[in-house]
């Protein structure tokens, strides 16, 4: 060792520290069992869809269904539009669910936090690492969908699919920020993961349905509602809010426009990122 104390280490910028935490947190994800479990799930889902499309060629995937627009659109709607939100949910639960709560429960925070680094840099670094891991899953799912679409319907890939992939990524960014906020609320990994899954899978859907059906209120506050632009953009023309049924059964089905959906996702990202950061800054390692 050096003979005496030296404090000649550079005072490194917070942005550089975010990059460093991202690098090592992603390395930790990349080598973890959960990364390969999630990868297996994505490959399994894609494999089943490929088998179903290739072997049965059902109308569900647009085989033999006459369309006015790009004939491959129903295929991408069925494959991508129906399942991408599940991939997002699982990726977020796997990589973001306990990202912050785990720092407390597993005590990894005791290794990182008592260093000359802001907690916000740890939070942001871990968020970016989770985003890269989750984006990898989304990209694999999208590429397999694209591969199948090209194989079955040719290279004329509808631009709506590209839009939908982009919106799915925006959705992932917002949902991951939301998950990190929940992860900051709890010190138990299991509880934070469970809460996120329950919220995204059940609570938002139930509240959206009840408010829409009973009170006729557009669920503009719901991240799940905003995420519906991902399959909607694959429908030509883009669907609009409509009212169906008669008398007491008359019901309005709300569909967010693309700007509305993106605005809700952006609001979720900003608000939950700020709240999550605040919670992590204040949370004590007791």
């Amino acid at each position: 060792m050096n003979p005496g104390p030296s404090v000649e280490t550079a005072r490194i910028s917070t942005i550089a520290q975010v990059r460093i935490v991202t690098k090592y947190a992603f390395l930790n994800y990349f080598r973890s069992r959960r990364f390969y479990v999630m990868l297996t799930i994505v490959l399994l889902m894609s494999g089943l869809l490929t088998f179903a499309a290739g072997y049965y060629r059902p109308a569900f995937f647009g085989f033999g269904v006459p369309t006015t627009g790009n004939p491959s659109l129903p295929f991408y709607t069925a494959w991508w539009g129906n399942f991408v939100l599940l991939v997002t949910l699982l990726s977020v639960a796997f990589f973001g669910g306990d990202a912050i709560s785990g720092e407390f429960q597993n005590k990894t925070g005791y290794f990182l936090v008592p260093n000359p680094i802001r907690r916000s840099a740890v939070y942001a670094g871990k968020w970016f690492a989770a985003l890269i891991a989750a984006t990898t899953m989304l990209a694999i799912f999208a590429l397999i969908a694209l591969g199948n679409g090209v194989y079955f319907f040719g290279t004329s890939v509808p631009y709506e699919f590209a839009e939908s992939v982009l919106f799915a990524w925006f959705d992932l960014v917002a949902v991951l920020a939301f998950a990190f906020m929940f992860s900051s609320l709890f010190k138990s990994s299991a509880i934070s993961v469970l809460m996120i899954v329950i919220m995204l899978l059940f609570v938002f859907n139930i509240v959206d349905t009840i408010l829409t059906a009973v009170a006729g209120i557009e669920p503009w506050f719901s991240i799940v509602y905003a995420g519906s632009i991902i399959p909607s953009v694959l429908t030509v023309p883009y669907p609009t809010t409509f009212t169906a049924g008669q008398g007491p059964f008359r019901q309005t089905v709300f569909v967010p426009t693309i700007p509305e959906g993106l605005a809700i996702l952006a609001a979720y990202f900003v608000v939950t990122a700020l709240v999550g950061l605040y919670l992590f800054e204040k949370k004590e390692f007791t």
Partner: protein
Amino acid sequence: MPPSMEAAGLTKRYGSFTALSDLNLKLEGTKCVGFLGPNGAGKTTTMKMFTGLISPTGGKAMINGVEIREDKKKALGSCASLIETPEIYPALTAREALMMLAELRGVPKGERLKRIDEALGRVKMQEWEDKKVGSFSKGMKQRVNVASTLLTDPQVIILDEPSTGLDPRGMSEVRDIVKSLGNRLVFMSSHLLSEVTDVCHEVAMIDHGKLLVYDTISNVTAKFSDGGGMVEVGFSREVDDEPAGRIRKMEGVLEVRKSNGRHLIVKFAGGLEAQENLFEQVAGLGKGIVSFKETSSGLEEAYLKLIKETV
């Protein structure tokens, strides 16, 4: 400027429970200060406030004059710490985990590997540097944690029971490492009084969140253990009654007893000066004396006198 740590009115409350009450403690200079107290006394709470793991309810925690809440990056820039038994991202290797810290702490790129190798070498973990931390035992992880405090040659080192989870050899090695950390201010909590006696120059004791005493070990021992210090004198061979009788007659000696065949425990009145006199007299005996060291017994007596009961 000498390294320093200062708690000024440092207080931590959890609802109606006061974990630390108005702690005023200033440590300055290059030395090792032992931090003692029973379970729940507030030792770890204090150390966590010095490292930004928890926030004080009142008062200030400063390192080298910089308040941790005001500028954590600056305050901890010259401080390394080991609080409780941290876990490391399990899929990283020991080298990667330390590289992450080296990068975060701004160790120059060209020096990182050298420093990591040296730090891992000091804790005898070089062989394991490319193995994933997830496969390590608790003791091995703690060795890596100790290595993490050596990466940047910090001026201030905060160690919260650093030998926790280590086997006897590991504990001894950690003690040797701490002893070798000259030119630094080391603030170390421990339940092992022998460890503190062996490694530290000064001791601070707290109980129920309040500082009871802060002084040199000799002074604390002198003040609170029936007014005397205690040393162990080691002989190269079986010791008979004759040297014990002669030591008993020396100035300031209160009591002499055999601890085993080759050691005598000598209790004496006074502080460092009295100990120095006693050392000179004992050294002049010429009876095959091979060691003369403070024992934890005196500190233990002082500890038990100051701290009546544990929580």
